[in-house]
């Protein structure tokens, strides 16, 4: 059990306990994120970046660590995302194009470049619900299994199947008429 208040008071024992819990998560998140964007990952680079995350947490009187709110999310999940952001920022400083553009930028890039495929209709923003859209993305773009998608979204596999079915039905109705 991590004694956050003890950490924030600068207590060594609390900090050491925090590090024991946090180091595996931070290191794993840094390493995975590096592997996503770099063909080869140097073992030292992952460790140094993980250390960077710890420095971010303590510097300026634990400024970043103070933003964590235990009532909103678990510490390990929050640390995973903080570690990822730190890694992505580092990669972007090294090589601005390393991390893929987000969807908005991709969209702009696509529209700017000529495309041979037939012009597509504008999709009404509410054709699919956010969850329907997300599930289709996980299943078709990420090629996840129903079980993997269920684990990611913390729902029943049956929910995934029925949501997918509804979404496909809506798409069929929309495109079928055009």
């Amino acid at each position, binding site marked *: 059990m991590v004694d956050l208040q003890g950490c924030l008071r*600068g207590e*060594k024992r609390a*900090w050491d306990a925090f590090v*024991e819990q*946090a*180091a*595996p*998560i*931070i*290191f794993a*998140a840094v390493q*995975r*994120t590096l592997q*996503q964007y770099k063909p080869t990952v140097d073992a030292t680079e992952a*460790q140094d*970046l*993980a*250390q*960077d995350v*710890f*420095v971010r947490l*303590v*510097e300026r009187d634990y400024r970043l660590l103070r933003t*964590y709110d235990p009532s*909103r*999310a*678990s510490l*390990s*999940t*929050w640390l*995973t*995302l903080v570690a*990822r*952001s730190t890694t*992505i920022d*580092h990669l972007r400083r090294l090589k601005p194009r390393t991390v*893929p553009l*987000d*969807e*908005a930028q991709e*969209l702009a890039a696509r529209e700017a470049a000529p495309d041979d495929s037939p012009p*597509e*209709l*504008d*999709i009404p923003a509410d054709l*699919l*619900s*956010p*969850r329907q*859209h*997300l599930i*289709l993305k996980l*299943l*078709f773009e990420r090629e996840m299994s129903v079980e993997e998608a269920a*684990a*990611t979204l913390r729902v029943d596999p049956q929910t995934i199947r029925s949501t997918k079915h509804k979404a*496909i039905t809506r*798409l*069929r109705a929309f*495109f079928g008429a055009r």
Partner: protein
Amino acid sequence: MNDSDERQLVERFARGLRQAPASCPSELELAAYADGRASEAEAVRIEAHLALCAKCLEGVIQARQLAAATPAAPSQLTSRAKALVAGWRPTSVRRRWRTVASWAAAAAAAGALGFAGLRAGTAASKARQEAAASVGTELSFEAPEQYLALLSSDDVLGILAPRGQEGHHE
């Protein structure tokens, strides 16, 4: 599993999208969602974002996967990170003082000692090591293991701690 007819529909849908994602949620908001602790309204808002933002979606996926099983960290990282916070033991510090005296003097001359201590060994600081080494030290920065071994000693960290302590300053 996903038949090609369904795939075609999904691709036509994706090509026709004209939405840009809203600005990314904070790490805390995404963490709350990934932990299944977001409210219904927040979850809808975040899912709408995740459907359009690969970076945030990957973050949530990774968080969920790591929650399932986390491999151990290298012990060197654990030592280095622990060393960021001082365990102050006045008597033993005096014994070590002479060993690090010249390094400390060099670093103090170079500027914020505490900051240098914190930053050493991080990805952001490797270039600074060369500058410090050129000042002339008893410890060689070309042998980081030597430095790291010292760092993990609580006694020495009394000297390197960023908090205001006698003889040290930011």
